[in-house]
């Protein structure tokens, strides 16, 4: 393990061995429906409350991941979990049955990358498997950050739709075909935007900052990658990110946004696209990692973004601080 100027961490031997994804109903109607390991037809996932449903999804993703890896829960060194609920209840409650050390992390919708980066550090240090577990749920997030789900509100056109689902990733020091090359942790970036209905354009500067710092410290250009993905900037946010790079005369391509990949934005009622911690995690687990495995892409920069706001901070008219963490993946020869 080493660190570069620009605070990029490089890992020596951290590999992604297995991963699993569990998705909700709207995601299952989207273009990636074939990639999910398990799906639910309703938001309750057979449970009594939405909160319980989110925990059930996360537990299930964890179990599926362990099952695929043929590991027992005792084999894990620790679990790093994150979600969008207050006090991270979805992650900590669903980790109860794993009976192993637990680290809860929060970076809003960028949680998956923060979890993977930290897991990389732990794996390098202890050379034992670490599981990263991420979830979000549309109804629990709506309720906590916006309004009750049955409240009749006309959404603004810049809104995004919080994804429902969970994904688990198993990192280990034993050689596998996908390698975690490095990670650049994000800085808090606040361009002074206040509109909680338009998080995409608030988060775009954070992605811009992290991608630029990562490329600079790695001495790469965008074209060194087969794909650069952001987490949930969605339609308008992705457009603003491109504008930011254009202003510097940098060609941000090949670039895509997970919020636009998870849903069929033109036909599904998701406004600008998907958001939420599970949005980027689901796309990674159901689409990007399989593509790395099949060799369709060989070098991937994964940069989910998070808007670190709360209902209180919005009501107090604060600006939105944002963060983006970058994870560099490559296929091993």
């Amino acid at each position, binding site marked *: 393990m080493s660190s570069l100027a620009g605070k990029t961490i490089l890992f020596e031997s951290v590999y992604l061995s297995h991963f699993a994804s569990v998705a909700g109903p709207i995601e299952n109607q989207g273009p990636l429906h074939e990639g999910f390991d398990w799906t639910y037809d309703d938001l309750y996932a057979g449970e009594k409350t939405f909160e319980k449903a989110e925990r059930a999804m996360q537990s299930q993703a964890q179990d599926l991941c362990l099952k695929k890896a043929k590991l027992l829960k005792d084999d894990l060194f620790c679990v790093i979990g994150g979600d969008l609920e207050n006090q991270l209840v979805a992650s900590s409650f669903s980790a109860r049955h794993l009976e192993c050390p637990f680290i809860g992390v929060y970076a809003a919708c960028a949680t998956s990358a923060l979890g993977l980066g930290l897991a990389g550090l732990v794996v390098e240090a202890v050379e034992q498997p670490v599981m990263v577990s991420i979830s979000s749920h549309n109804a629990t997030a709506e309720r906590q950050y916006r*309004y009750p789900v*049955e409240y*009749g509100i006309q959404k603004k*056109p*810049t809104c995004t739709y919080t994804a429902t689902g969970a994904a688990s990733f198993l990192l280990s020091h034993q050689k596998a075909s996908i390698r975690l090359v490095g990670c650049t942790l994000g800085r808090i970036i606040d361009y002074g935007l206040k509109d909680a209905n338009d998080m995409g354009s608030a988060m775009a500067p954070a992605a811009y900052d992290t991608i630029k710092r990562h490329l600079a410290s790695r001495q790469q250009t965008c074209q060194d990658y087969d794909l650069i993905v952001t987490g949930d900037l969605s339609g308008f946010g992705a457009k603003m990110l491109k504008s*930011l790079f254009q202003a510097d005369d940098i060609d941000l391509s090949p670039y895509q946004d997970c919020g636009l990949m998870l849903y069929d934005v033109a036909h599904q009622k998701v406004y600008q696209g998907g958001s939420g911690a599970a949005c980027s995690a689901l796309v990674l687990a159901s689409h990007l990692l399989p593509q790395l495995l099949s060799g369709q892409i060989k070098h991937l920069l994964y940069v989910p973004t998070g808007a670190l706001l709360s209902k209180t901070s919005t009501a107090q008219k604060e600006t939105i601080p944002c963060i983006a963490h970058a994870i560099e993946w490559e296929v091993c020869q």
Partner: protein
Amino acid sequence: MDKQAYRDLVKQQQPKVPYLKNAITAFLVGGLIGALGQALVTLYMNWFGLNEQQAGTPMIVTLIAVACLLTGLGVFDKLAGHAGAGTFIPITGFANSMTSAALESRAEGLVSGVGSHMFSLGGTVITFGIVASFVIGVIRYVFFGG
């Protein structure tokens, strides 16, 4: 690009609200609710032999009941997503705000959930209604003698 330039760019390029479509839908839906109210008033006048003023109250109660039921069935939020102010300005919006808050917090129990959260959205209307009415009432009483 500096922060101010970025903010300006966001403002300039932000996807536009479909003003005209929203305004027409709100007018039509709001108007239909008004006409429906009028139909109910006429109905109650004929059925129960009430005068128009008396028939107003059962009409409002009926519409509140319908709005609560539609909220429970999960239809109201979809309708309101299109209608906007067409459904939140009439009394139906008040009923929906109370019902949705109550439904949402049912999982936390009857007292700490439903009871304490029911007014979390609709309460503001009552608060401001009373404060404004009281202030204006006092003004009217003092200066105009009631």
